[in-house]
């Protein structure tokens, strides 16, 4: 009887030890999985639909509302504010030098800007290239790279830098190019994520100008 009690106690002790080891192992792997999820959490490309009904999750929050205000520097260091374009129809176009689709879209914007400028239309190009404000030499190189792009593309409209600093109110800017169409009252009336078509861009510009509904 004594021997039985001893054996049962020993087995129960071992069972408890294994149960604890199992629980500890599960906890460890749960935390590792959470760390992995956190490290892989990343922006998701929004599939282009090819029509004006792009599935912009952030658009409902901005559509019909005033375009979020900002003041950014241009390549010469001059501060440019959205508010100074009151009364004009605008495209706020986010792009980057490393973005191949942006290189396709920019000539369309240049052409359309030149076509509709006389009617009170302007484009504000905002570069999402990294900006190292703490390193003057790097900053100068980065500005030069943006400047080369501006020159190659013959961009006639203002080009501002440091899109990241205003990314949040504009939906995170995880996909480039992204354009917001703003009417003369400063209200966001449409947006495009990714490369669409020149025709669609023109349609949205006309809407911003009030030429079509």
């Amino acid at each position, binding site marked *: 009887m004594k021997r039985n009690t001893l054996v049962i106690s020993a087995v129960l002790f071992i069972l408890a030890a294994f149960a604890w080891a199992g629980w500890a192992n599960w906890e460890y792997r749960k935390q590792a999985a959470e760390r992995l999820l956190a490290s892989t959490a990343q922006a998701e490309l929004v599939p282009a639909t090819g029509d004006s009904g792009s599935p912009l999750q952030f658009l409902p929050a901005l559509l019909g509302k005033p375009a979020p205000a900002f003041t950014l520097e241009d390549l010469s260091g001059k501060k440019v504010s959205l508010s100074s374009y009151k009364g004009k129809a605008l495209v706020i176009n986010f792009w980057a030098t*490393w973005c191949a689709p942006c290189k396709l879209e920019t000539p369309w914007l240049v052409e359309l800007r030149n076509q509709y400028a006389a009617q009170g239309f302007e484009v504000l190009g905002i570069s999402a290239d990294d900006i190292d404000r703490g390193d003057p030499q790097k900053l100068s190189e980065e500005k030069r790279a943006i400047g080369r792009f501006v020159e190659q593309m013959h961009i006639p409209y203002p080009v501002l830098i440091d899109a990241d600093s205003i990314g949040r109110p504009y939906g995170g800017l995880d*996909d480039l190019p992204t354009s917001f169409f703003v009417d003369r009252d400063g209200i966001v009336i449409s947006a495009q994520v990714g490369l669409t078509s020149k025709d669609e861009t023109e349609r949205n510009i006309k809407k911003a100008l009030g030429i079509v509904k």
Partner: protein
Amino acid sequence: MIARRTGMYIALMSALTFSFALAQTQRPLLDEASRSSAKPAAVAYLYPEQITVPAGKPTAIGLHFRIGPGLHINSHTPREDELIPTVFSIPDGSGVRLEAATYPPGADFTLPLDPKTKLSVYTGEFIVQARVVAASGEHLVEARLHYQACDNNACLPPRTITAAIDVIGK
């Protein structure tokens, strides 16, 4: 009496075996299926998770990565200066030194709206051949892959992912 005692021992041993199996199970909590329900990363490190190499001797290892469906990243040698190359690195002080990295050649790729411009990209799975020298002992290396991903119409900002590799130098 003997039969009762034998039954009791069998029951106890079964419970013991079950507990042991529970304690030792190594099934990952975040398997491929559950990972896919999370927001997909453009590039994921696949394997190896652990390697044993001769300590102090240069050793080549193949590191496997996978790019998300519908996406591409620039190769290590993109055709245009502005495009961001894919670069593998190992941080200093990790006990493992990267002597050289050899990248696969990029595949030609054209955007549907610009069939004239050829890009040099990776899609699907690709392997970076890394020549490493490990000090003696076990090192948890957090290697890095810097890349910039796009699909046919849009691009994501450049990113750096971590590839956790347990390197044992013997």
